[in-house]
């Protein structure tokens, strides 16, 4: 069990290092960096590599933003597997990511209870 924590730490940390390299070396904005990582997650899932990474690293693979791309693609692929090409299109309307809904929900709740502390 301790090894799962260590693997999550190392894999999650390395994904963040890739993000930092995109910030510092490629001089990308956070928006660009996060978009690239999400697309990378989607492509990795298409190649069938992201699920094994989740098996390997647990939260180290589900917590970084790349898992958005993975869960969206996974939903679309599952539908496509059942219904073919039409499934890709209908699948796109069914895919969700708990991260997005949670961020919307908690963001709205936060705006109800917290006040901006005079930040520009």
């Amino acid at each position: 069990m301790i090894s799962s924590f260590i693997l999550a730490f190392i894999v999650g940390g390395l994904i963040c290092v890739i993000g930092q390299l995109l910030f510092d070396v490629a001089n990308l904005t956070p928006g660009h960096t996060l978009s690239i990582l999400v697309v990378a997650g989607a492509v990795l899932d298409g190649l069938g590599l992201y699920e094994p990474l989740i098996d390997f690293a647990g939260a180290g693979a589900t917590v970084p933003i790349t898992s958005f791309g993975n869960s969206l693609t996974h939903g679309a692929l599952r539908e496509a597997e059942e219904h073919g090409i039409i499934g890709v299109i209908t699948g796109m309307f069914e895919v969700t990511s708990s991260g997005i809904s949670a961020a919307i929900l908690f963001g709205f709740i936060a705006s109800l209870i917290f006040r901006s502390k005079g930040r520009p």
Partner: protein
Amino acid sequence: MIAYLIRPSDILDKSERAGHGQQAQVRLRNRASPGEQQGLEPGPHSWTKNGGGVLKKMLGAAGIVLILSGCGQGKAEIRVTGEPDADDEQRAERVLDGEERISSAVAVFVKEDLLVGVDVKPLSRFKKAKIEEKLKKKMEEEFPERTVTLSGDQKIYWETEKLEKLRDDKKKLHDQVETIKSLSKEET
């Protein structure tokens, strides 16, 4: 990554550093801190002097733990519970013993069901899905008359482990097996 740990001070000898040190300092200041790049307030950026040492120590410690936990165990520990027939135990052990990438397994025989929870070794988890598939096929060949449910999921393994305590309570055992079977079918 190790290459980035080399600082100019390691490469230039002292006399050169004395002459141009200030220039280098200015350069450092001009680099945007991570905070600034995210549109946040610029923070004081004092990257720790012994940062490299901390990282090396951490990686070293992590490596040692990984080796200890991953490769330290020898053969897989196999337990059989539920209501196995006469030679079921040996047959299950023979099949599961051949797999070196699992550290332990619990096989539960209940009526026509065979429920197997396996604990895959940490460094083999990348191939967990393939290991599950292979073992399931082998078990189905060995026990064609039973419905085999096999999973390398930690939760399923914990739950099958708990079934060992339910040996005497037949009804509860059957209910639990059904619950675990439906758990293992759930998707994200």
